[in-house]
């Protein structure tokens, strides 16, 4: 039985970048309005109330990412792949190794900079899970382990 593993800590950079891009547009809009209000053509007060809320969420999300990383674990047992993550809502998914059909690697520009890939596991029925942020060399070995099926009968 393999030991319990977790994603590479550098995956935090990838996640942060994701949060920043998704909130970046909103931030730009709010900043634009703030600039306008300084020059005199101010946006109404309710606008800031509504815009401030998602902005606050974004900042909060940045801090919660560390927690997310701490909670992300996975383990290959003789018969199964077990993944566990989530703090507010705890998710556990157990996949039978002999039902795994194919394993994909996905990586974005930032992930590639840190030599990280997301491992996507498929069975015949569905895409059952994604293990985020694994070093590509470890990912290769992991894929071989996942694809070779159960270890002993």
């Amino acid at each position, binding site marked *: 039985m393999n030991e319990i593993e977790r994603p590479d800590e550098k995956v935090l950079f990838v996640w942060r970048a994701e949060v920043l891009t998704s909130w970046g547009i909103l931030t730009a809009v709010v900043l634009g309005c703030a600039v306008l209000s300084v020059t005199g053509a101010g946006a109404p007060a309710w606008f800031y109330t509504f815009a401030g809320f998602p902005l606050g969420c974004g900042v909060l999300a940045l801090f919660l990412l560390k927690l997310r990383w701490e909670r992300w674990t996975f383990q290959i047992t003789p018969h199964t792949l077990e993944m566990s993550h989530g703090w507010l809502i705890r998710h556990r998914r*157990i996949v039978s190794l*002999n*039902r795994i059909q194919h394993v994909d690697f996905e990586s974005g520009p930032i992930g590639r900079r840190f030599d990280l890939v997301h491992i996507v596991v498929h*069975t015949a029925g569905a895409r059952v899970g994604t293990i985020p942020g694994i070093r590509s060399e470890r990912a290769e070995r992991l894929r071989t382990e996942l694809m070779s099926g159960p270890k002993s009968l």
Partner: protein
Amino acid sequence: MFPVIIGVIATGHGGNQEWIAAGIAFFIAAFAVGAYWTTRFDIEPDHVVYQTGWIFRKDRRIPLKQIQNVNIRQNLLERLLKVATVDVETAMGHGRDLKLSVLTLPDAERFREELLGAAHLESGSAPKPEEAVVRLTNHDLLLGALTENHLAQSIVILMTVGGSSLGLAFRFADKLSAVAAPLVFAGGLALLLVGAWLWGAGAYYLKFGGFVVHRSEHIFRISYGLLNKVQLSIRPGRIEYVHLTTTVLQRLMDRTSLHLGTAGSFGEAGVFAPVALFVERKVAYDGASEVIPGLDIEDLNWQPFDRIFYRARVARSLLNIVVLTSLAALLNVYGGLSLVWPAWGFFMLLIAIRLATLFLAKPENGFAVTEDTLVVRSGYFHQSISAMPIIRMENIAVRQPMWWRRYGASSVIAQAMKHRIPVPAMPDSEIENLLSRWRDKIDTPENLSLYELIVPRETIPDPV
């Protein structure tokens, strides 16, 4: 082709349009003829071969071992032309992996026989002659249609016809006296609901008319449909999901319907094959225990869903009430719309009905984990019992919100190849029990051979 021609005729006397349309129609027709001449299919010793394409050739081979279902369908046009479409489904692809259109019906049936026959020979035995095991009489079909659940149709009617007639009603309401207006209104609503129900029943009647199930050693053959004729074939060895449904009225009559799901019956958006409609409960239970040996629904050790499930549902309803009420109050202050409060009342009624249903269903809601099967029973107006053999499960997902932790319960979804079975709140000890039984089974030689049968290992692509 027809829309183009109609479009040209409709747009009138434009100069070259007729010629352009004729040209397009000619090319479409030429391609259709070309496709017709270049499409070939054949059954080889261990493959079915399908070749098509004129400019871009396509050659598809499906190992006979992989074939899950062979279905024959006829829509209304096809029935008028006396032709049929054959769908061949495998576990690997997405629904119809092979579709052969415009075969004459005898040809389609012969092709299916050959295909299934060839696949049988793989498993080393010849099919026995078939006998009809379930036949739905007209009387039962009618009763089944009337007692089924047609809530979806009713809601559609209420939202479409109901909405516009409400507008009309308001216009005429002030012409009636204060006593007559609500009476007329209630009468109209009742008529609408009855109409919607009858519409749903009629649709059910047309869909399932002539329902017959034939059974041989290797195959269930199900055919039904008064307008669109459907023939489904299921191999009992591929069944991974059993689903029994009963509406309130049917429960009073002690009747129920049995549906089966195989690994390959997907691509049909939630439709899996009905094998017994409106049969006596005992017959349906016997059918279920025949396809999942050892499953005796009447003798199960039912355990209730954890109480957090009901608390969470009630909390969500309360939240909905608070949000909707404040929204309505806000709209009332700023908009002053006369329809705000009736709409609010409608939503409150829906929430009340949902809560009432939840607590009506509570005594019978529950799950059971036997040595080989997970069974879940839920619902009141439309009660369902779903069962899945543990050995068929591919993955199990457990979800636990933070505030559920002190109840020691989680929600669980067990997924087989195509069907999933959810348990909304299961005590953690029972989850461990289910997981350990599953772990014991997943790598037994029996399970491996089961899987080889569905997806031969050599077809799994190697990592690149």
